[in-house]
């Protein structure tokens, strides 16, 4: 009798395990769809990381580890990225022109503010915008493809 106990136990364990594994096929009818909050969780974490970095920069400045010029730059860059993340968390799709972020375009060469639409910087004269040779919409220097029609711009 005793030599039967172990196989019996094992058999029970095996069947219940098999049942447990196959249960999803009996109860759930369709494929389980991916959790929609994955993306937003990732963004939340990114935001936390940025917040921490902002605080760290503030603290480093307070401790005298970095000078005020470095601090300003660091903080501004971090804020810019935070604005993008917050915008996306609130459901925005493209990370530009947000309610929170009033971006003023600046010249990539001299950082002077520029008016949207102009083709040359009024301060240093570098080229700001060009147009796509295929569809005519405006492009930004350095772009590799036209954002309207997809034509390659590197010639």
């Amino acid at each position, binding site marked *: 009798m005793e030599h039967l106990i172990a196989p019996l136990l094992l058999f029970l364990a095996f069947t219940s395990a098999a049942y447990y594994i196959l249960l999803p096929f009996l109860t759930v009818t369709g494929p389980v769809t991916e959790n929609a909050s994955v993306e937003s969780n990732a963004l939340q974490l990114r935001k*936390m990381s940025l*917040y*921490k970095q*902002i*605080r760290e920069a503030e603290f480093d400045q307070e401790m005298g580890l970095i000078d005020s010029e470095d601090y*300003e*730059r660091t903080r*501004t*860059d971090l*804020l*810019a990225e*935070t*604005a993008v993340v*917050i915008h996306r968390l609130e459901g925005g799709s493209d990370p530009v022109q947000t309610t*929170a*972020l*009033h*971006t*003023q375009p*600046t010249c*990539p060469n001299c*950082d002077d*503010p520029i008016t949207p639409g102009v083709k040359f910087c009024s301060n240093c004269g570098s080229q700001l915008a060009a147009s796509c040779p295929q569809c005519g919409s405006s492009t930004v220097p350095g772009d590799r493809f036209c954002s309207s029609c997809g034509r390659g711009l590197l010639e």
Partner: protein
Amino acid sequence: MKGFTALVTIFSLVAVLPAQEAKNPLQRELEYEIMAPCCYGSPVGDHESEAAQQVKVQIAQLLAEGKTKEEILDMYVAIYGERILARPRAQGFNLMAYIVPPLLLVVGGLFLFYYLNRVTSPAARPVSANRESYSDEFFSKIEKEMKELDI
């Protein structure tokens, strides 16, 4: 500053202990150049076995006879083979054992310099955003959230 004082104390503590009295320094050096011929697991200086003891005594005798370090090592290699040396001699192929590690450091360093040069070049440098471009509303909003989250 307290830690610093402690360090200096530790330092003087070890500094007053002269290293290895009694034993001939050459004897000690040799004890760490020759493996224990019983199991080849560690140098005779770190090994407690009869074979290791014998080697220690032999080394002392050989030194007393006026043999040099190289002569003694040669004798052991002749008897037991190259395996008896705790580290390979820097000659022939075995030179590689000594060349490769520093080379790794040099190559790694050069590569890193090249990489840093590339990623810090003015063309790659990130453009800073403009500080004036955020509304006060935005500042107070994130400041509030940071406070709430206790960051």
